[in-house]
């Protein structure tokens, strides 16, 4: 389970003089992000490019520290209980980031070992994942020539290797063809059915609408609306998610103007 409460993070702007006022030197990537992702649910973090999705996920994955606000992963604080959080969390960043000179199996096995599994346990767990994610055909080939779909599967297997309760996927369907996307959705649904908490970030409305039980709309560093699809449509008075999204994002910018 993920509970984020008013997360805030700003970065230093490049090429701005040090004498400039603080507000110009720094840019807030995430202004105020609050949402809850429950176990057994697929939660979608929906927002356009540059809305702060990746920064939010990085804070949740303990890669960077929030400036203010806090977040809990399965009851562990991301700012203070870093190792506990990492043990409960599987994180798949938006680029698969696998090692091209290692085989698929070696890629997964390396992560298994780093998560504290013994050699034997690692082999067993790697074997399980290869079967579960139907990777047998390319398991022992080096990753150099893998298709995007194959790379994503390897990355997903790595994220799952330590049986995390919570799984975060940063735009996992980027670059996947229709069949691979369907396959991935199937796997994600299955994991949710097993009781995992899944946070799924995307900028594609249809995908979020088709897959997610719960949606948090993020725009300009702020979560503007959080509910299930039907409620979001009802609250914005729209018929599809895209219009609802535009409505929600606009209400935010009006709020700022006033």
């Amino acid at each position, binding site marked *: 389970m993920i509970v984020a409460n008013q997360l805030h993070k700003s970065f230093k702007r490049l090429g701005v003089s040090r004498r400039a006022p603080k507000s110009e030197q720094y840019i807030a990537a995430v202004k105020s992000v609050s949402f809850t992702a429950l176990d057994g649910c697929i939660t979608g973090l929906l927002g356009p490019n540059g809305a702060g999705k990746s920064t939010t996920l990085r804070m949740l*994955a303990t*890669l*960077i520290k929030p400036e203010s606000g806090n977040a809990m992963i399965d009851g562990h604080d991301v700012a203070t209980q870093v190792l506990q959080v*990492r043990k409960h969390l599987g*994180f798949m960043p938006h680029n698969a*980031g696998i090692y091209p000179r*290692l085989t698929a199996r070696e890629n997964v096995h*390396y992560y298994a070992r*780093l998560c504290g599994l013994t050699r034997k346990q690692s082999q067993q767990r790697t074997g399980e994942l290869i079967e579960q994610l139907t990777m047998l055909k390319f398991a022992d080939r*080096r990753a150099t020539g893998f298709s995007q779909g194959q790379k994503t599967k390897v990355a997903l297997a790595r994220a799952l290797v330590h049986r995390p309760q919570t799984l975060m996927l940063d735009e996992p369907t980027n670059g996947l063809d229709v069949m691979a996307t369907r396959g991935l959705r199937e796997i994600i649904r299955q994991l949710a059915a097993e009781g995992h908490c899944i946070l799924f970030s995307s900028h594609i409305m249809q995908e979020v609408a088709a897959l997610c039980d719960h949606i948090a709309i993020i725009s300009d560093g702020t979560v503007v609306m959080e509910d299930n699809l039907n409620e979001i449509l009802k609250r914005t008075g729209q018929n599809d998610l895209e219009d609802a999204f535009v409505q929600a994002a606009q209400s935010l910018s009006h709020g700022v103007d006033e």
Partner: protein
Amino acid sequence: MNLFIVMFKEIVDNLRDRQTVFYALLFGPVLLPLLIGGSLVASFKQMTIDFDAVTTLRVVNADKAPTLMEFLYSNNIDTKAAPDDVEKSVRSGESLVVLEITDDYGEALRNGSPAPLTLHVNNADKDSAKATRRINAVLNVYEQTLGSLRLQHRGIDPTTFDSLNIIENDVSNEGANGQLLASILPFLFIMSMVMGGFYLAIDTTAGERERQSLEPLLSLPLSRTSVVMGKYLATVCFVLLSSTLTALSIYILFKLFPLEIMGGQVRFDGPSVARAFFLVSPLILLISAMLISVSAITRSTKQAQTYLGVLMVIPMAPFFLLQYLNIRASLGSMSLPMLSQYQLLESAVLGDTIPWLHIALSVAGTLAATAILLILAARLYQREKLLD
């Protein structure tokens, strides 16, 4: 524990990379010693004349100077009639040197005046110049003998004309040749260390950032310090391997060439190469730390190559400094990494005794610098900027 998992993975990963393996196993240990050591040995061969080897000299009018011919013969120089066009033959390199006995040679000799001889040489050709030096040396001895005979003939003690008798006592264990050769050794070792770890260090740090595989790695339940140290240890393994192979190839290279031609007691036998390797070994840790900490700053492999290319000046600096400046081994120079190893290795190869204090200072200075760089590398990995 995680540290060794990271180390092991990086080693396996990089052994599959042709470029890394080429530089670690071939360039530093084999190519560099062959290029530098080989050309050095060849140039010494060029400079040194072996007076015991029998050579042939082409002579014009040999019959006009039978005594000189006999003298040449007794100095291992066989004589042979010269070709018709002397100058063309020397220019083309067919004959290295041609000695021409002029027509009035015998006449001048009998009159007690300087007897003219002509040497046709080609100074642009190294082999010709070398042959000329040998002939000149032999002719000088002949001239001195004739001069003494002439003086004695007139009842004068020949030593009257030797107003000074200068004896040069070279107190260095080895001459200038040995000095150069001795400074080549640390250069080879250090270059092979740098080249050995170069690509692995870049691949494991900047390469990992570029491939974007760092982000998922750092989100695993392990400390960033163990990630850096694992990468460091992998670099150490490659540097160690590369420098060990270099020691081996230096030993073999100088085993193949007779060192007497370098005029002395430069030692490249098993124990002294082993001793040199032992003295230079702390640099394995330091150079690995340098490679890792510098490439940890960089974002891409290209940037890392640029930074490390500039950094290469540091290991080479003492080599060039010592060519221009005569820095004596002192407690100060011994506590400086790189410089101290150059000086220690020079002493080792030249067979000088090395004070234990110097060795201790060199090791301590090098380890201290290593520790500083490793702390720096670990700090660099804690930065949030690492994931930009």
